[in-house]
């Protein structure tokens, strides 16, 4: 059982690193807005939150941020933006997962929103430019459809993996 868990987490980590790098290189540039992304790597965090729980999901998230940091530059602005976005997103996702009446879609939206908020505040701190906060409304607007999209993909994947895990309500 422990081996199965470790193998699954390792695969999920690999998938999230690849998704994150693909997204950075192939998707992000289209929008013309800094910090806008689909959040494909967040699908992995959502799946782990609903299968192995908070600790494993957090572990994979942190290791993914560090591994991607080796590509973008460890302790570079991009690394700190990812770290701040990831932390705020994870906090909001775990909070909303515990609240009654919300499904994985809401959890995903809050993750997407938290990522935007965390990154904006880190950018304000790094660049010492408060005016960056005016990008936040457009990022919040974009985080709603992107959050719904990643949430629906995660739910579909969880449904297809249902036999592997204890039954959950997504």
């Amino acid at each position, binding site marked *: 059982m422990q081996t199965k868990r470790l193998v699954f987490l390792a695969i999920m980590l690999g998938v999230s690193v690849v998704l994150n790098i693909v997204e950075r290189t192939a998707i992000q540039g289209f929008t013309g*807005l800094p910090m806008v992304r689909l959040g494909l790597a967040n699908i992995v965090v959502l799946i782990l939150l609903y299968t192995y729980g908070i600790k494993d999901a957090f572990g994979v998230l942190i290791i993914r941020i560090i591994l991607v940091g080796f590509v973008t530059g460890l302790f570079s602005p991009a690394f700190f933006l990812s770290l701040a976005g990831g932390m705020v997103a994870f906090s909001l996702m775990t909070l909303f997962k515990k609240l009654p009446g919300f499904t994985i879609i*809401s959890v995903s*939206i809050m993750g997407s929103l938290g990522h935007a908020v965390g990154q904006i505040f880190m950018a304000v701190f*790094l660049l010492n430019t408060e*005016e960056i906060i005016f990008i936040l*409304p457009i990022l919040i607007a974009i985080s709603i459809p992107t959050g719904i999209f990643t949430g629906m993909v995660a739910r579909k994947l969880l449904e297809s993996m249902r036999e592997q895990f204890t039954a959950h309500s997504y």
Partner: protein
Amino acid sequence: MKRNDIKLIAVLTIVALISVVAVQLLQRSQSYDDGIAVVTHGSTEVLRIDLKDGSALVMDEEEVVSIDEEAGIYIVKGSYGDNNTVTIGYDNANHTVRVLDEVSPQNICQKQGETNTPLKPLTCLPNEVVIRIETPLPAPDDDDAIIY
């Protein structure tokens, strides 16, 4: 989706739309043809470009590569990679500045377009170059500017 999901999406959509419209209106009302574009690299103030006529005031010579006020082209140093630069262009017709060229993974700051409002700073994150717009100083005969 449950009822709470729909409520959350509705609330966030309303909040986002209201704030996007509010920021757009603010940006339009607070654009300054006679503002100052302040260019910083990291924590160092590098250059000040007057949006009235494109004249430049160099604040740190070490950080400026070249300035062509006639053409409205200002090249400053960036942080991404070795010997990287950020090229800033001044548009005399619209009294705006924009990033014309820089080296970064996604060239996002080139895609941010032009600005002449304090509410739309141009941020080149990997290069750590920021262009902020400062409002023009009040004229000396303004009552507010007189200190007794």
